[in-house]
């Protein structure tokens, strides 16, 4: 009976309305309880972590991660990607199925699970394809993928282009109560685009992707969610108009949830002025007004959660002309620092809302038994030093890739220990 006691930290667990200095006792990988009485009532533990000054929260869940394996192991593998997750404070990731082959069969799901088990790092929840071969023509074998353990469905990387197929997917997934994670983009409007369409793209002569390319598709999918009663989760909302559409849909009672990425509440299209392909991603960096709207949407809960859209690309792929370089930005190892620095320390949101957005709600949307420190819960726990000031250095990343534009940035707040099922899987080395 191995016991772990986490003493004296600020326990923030929105799932049970907790925010105060408590001890957390873990036995055999499960939470025994959270108490203010400390070790006296809980008894002697095999291992004790002094969490004084730290935030102790249910393990963070990133519901939007590209692990690249199988097929693009030069960018990331399940092992390196999940190590990056642990270093970023995530105890669970949901891996997006735009792999090669795409995750559209039971055997591919099984492969991911086996690789993850072998890596023995964090939990990997599998997102299955909406369409067979991610081709957008017919539904994948969603029921069998659910049996294999898929927690949600997505053709991310691309939108589900056929409106009828999207309608069927939303409708069909109702019987499994699984969400469709939607990449929202009208491809004719964004064709050839490398950045947000606006004054900056005009001046730089770069082809733009208008906000409307995202918003038109969000509007379509909300309408389809409402007509079917299916669960729509809007991925990486990047525009003020997108936030407004989701807010209005929620007000009408539609079964819609949404996420925002740290780069979309931190950076703007002005960053492209240096022509650095590390600032190229889809959806693109938008304007300061959009950044403001994303932060407001996270604060009022319109945007339920923070997800990274961690999208590794090998260095040589990004060292190309801006229009040939692939879309994508690393996210796992900077998400906590950016969120604390940009949202909490600026007073936009409090710690309980941050943990809700990074743990409670993504776990709830995916329907996985994580995101809580209730007695009996699996002991996935993240310890965050809210005051740690650190400098981002891509050379120290666990990820296999280095495509982060935040290299050299100074951030506040960092995970210092990541515990999965009661085992300490990551500890930040003292520097």
């Amino acid at each position, binding site marked *: 009976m191995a016991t772990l006691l986490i003493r004296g930290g600020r326990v923030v667990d929105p799932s049970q309305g907790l925010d105060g200095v408590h001890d957390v006792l873990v036995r055999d990988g499960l939470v025994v309880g959270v108490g203010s009485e400390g070790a006296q009532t809980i008894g002697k533990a095999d291992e004790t972590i002094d969490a004084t000054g730290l935030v102790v929260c249910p393990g963070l869940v990133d519901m939007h991660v590209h692990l690249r394996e199988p097929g693009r192991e030069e960018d990331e593998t399940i092992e390196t990607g999940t190590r990056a997750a642990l270093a970023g404070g995530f105890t669970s990731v949901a891996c997006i199925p735009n792999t090669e082959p795409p995750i559209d069969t039971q055997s591919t799901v099984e492969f991911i699970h086996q690789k993850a088990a072998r890596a023995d790092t964090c939990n990997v929840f599998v997102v299955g394809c909406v369409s067979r071969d991610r081709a957008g023509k017919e539904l994948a074998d969603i029921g069998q993928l659910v049996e294999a353990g898929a927690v949600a469905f997505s053709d991310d990387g691309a939108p589900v282009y056929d409106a009828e197929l999207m309608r069927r997917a939303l409708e069909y997934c109702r019987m499994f109560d699984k969400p469709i994670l939607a990449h929202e983009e009208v491809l004719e409007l964004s064709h*050839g685009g490398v950045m947000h369409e606006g*004054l900056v793209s*005009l*001046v730089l*002569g770069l082809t733009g992707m208008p906000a409307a390319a995202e918003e038109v598709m969000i509007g379509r999918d909300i309408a389809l969610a409402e007509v079917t009663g299916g669960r729509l989760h809007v991925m990486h909302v990047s525009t003020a108009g997108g936030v407004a559409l989701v807010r209005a849909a929620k007000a009408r009672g539609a079964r819609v949830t949404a996420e925002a990425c740290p780069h979309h509440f931190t950076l703007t299209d002005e960053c492209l002025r240096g022509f650095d392909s590390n600032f190229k991603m889809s959806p693109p960096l938008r304007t300061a007004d959009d950044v403001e709207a994303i932060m407001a949407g996270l604060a009022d809960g319109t945007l339920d959660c923070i997800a990274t859209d961690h999208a590794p690309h090998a260095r040589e792929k990004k*060292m190309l*002309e801006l229009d040939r370089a692939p879309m994508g930005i690393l996210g796992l190892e900077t998400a906590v620092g950016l969120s604390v620095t940009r949202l909490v320390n600026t007073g936009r949101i409090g710690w309980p809302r941050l943990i809700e957005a990074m743990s409670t709600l993504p776990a709830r949307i995916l329907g996985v038994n994580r995101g809580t420190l209730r007695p009996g819960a699996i002991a996935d726990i993240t310890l965050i030093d809210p005051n740690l000031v650190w400098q981002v250095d891509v050379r120290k990343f666990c990820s296999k890739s280095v495509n982060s534009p935040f290299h050299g940035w100074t951030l506040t707040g960092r995970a210092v220990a990541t515990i999965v099922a009661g085992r300490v899987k990551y500890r930040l080395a003292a520097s």
Partner: protein
Amino acid sequence: MPATSFEPDAFPDGWGHRNLLDLERLSTAEIRLLLDTAARFKEATEGCRRKLSVLTGRTIVNLFFENSTRTRTSFSLAARRLGADVVDFAASSSSLSKGESFIDTAKNLEAMGVDAVVVRHATPGTPHLLANHLSVGVINAGDGPHEHPTQGLLDIFSIREHRGDLAGATVGLVGDIAHSRTARSNMWGLMKLGAKVILCGPPTLVSQRWRELGVEVSHDLDAIVPRCDVLNLLRIQFERQNTRPFPSVREYAHLYAMTKERLKRAKRDLLILAPGPINRGVEVTAEVADCPQSLILDQVTNGLAVRMGVLWLTCGSRGSQAAITAHGQQGRVV
């Protein structure tokens, strides 16, 4: 006096860079220096005809990832007029077609000891990325629809030759602004020299957003012709468009071609420019292209003068050499 008797000291210095990447980020003084240097070279070469030796021993490489005859020839001639050796490097015949990245290609050329890279590329910002990776000078000869600084300079140079100072002049840039690097370089250069810029064309090619930079936007050529001192007629870049931004060439020409009839309502001393190649009958009719107010052939000659000036300032002048040395000492970009 034999041409070779000019010593390097006879030409302007004071350019603190090894590159010419765009006009947007240059100061007014730097643009004036470029224009004055071009004028000095035009004079010293008696109209760009005689040869000098101020760049003897230097090697310039034309690294063209996109087809060009006019600009590449102009750069080559300008370099040779100054005594430099010139290497032409066309992407189609190179290792790029074997999958090498443009940065590796350029680094290889640098390792062969070239002194400056003149680069044309279909993607905006490629010269800027090269400049980050190379220690030698990089001259932008057109990066997609972004900028074409020597074209902007030679247009402005041609206007300046005819009317002196640009301050207070009204210059209309007409046509495919969306896809025109010439328009962008002209716009920045003209604004910095105090000219008033009007961008004119259909809304699908001329965004209202340009107003945020302080330029005027018009969709009505007839309305602006009488107010302009200069009209620069830009080519429709059919090759850069996904979907045609106007119903037909016929309709475009009807609305935006500079015709004899429109010329009648212009100021008498209106100057007409068109960066080649021109589509006669689309943006300008033949009689206007060949009319006395047309500076189209002056532009070509002045292109040599401007490129001589740019090559001198970026890879001959003392300032450029100091910049290259300083960059080398800083070490390369990671």
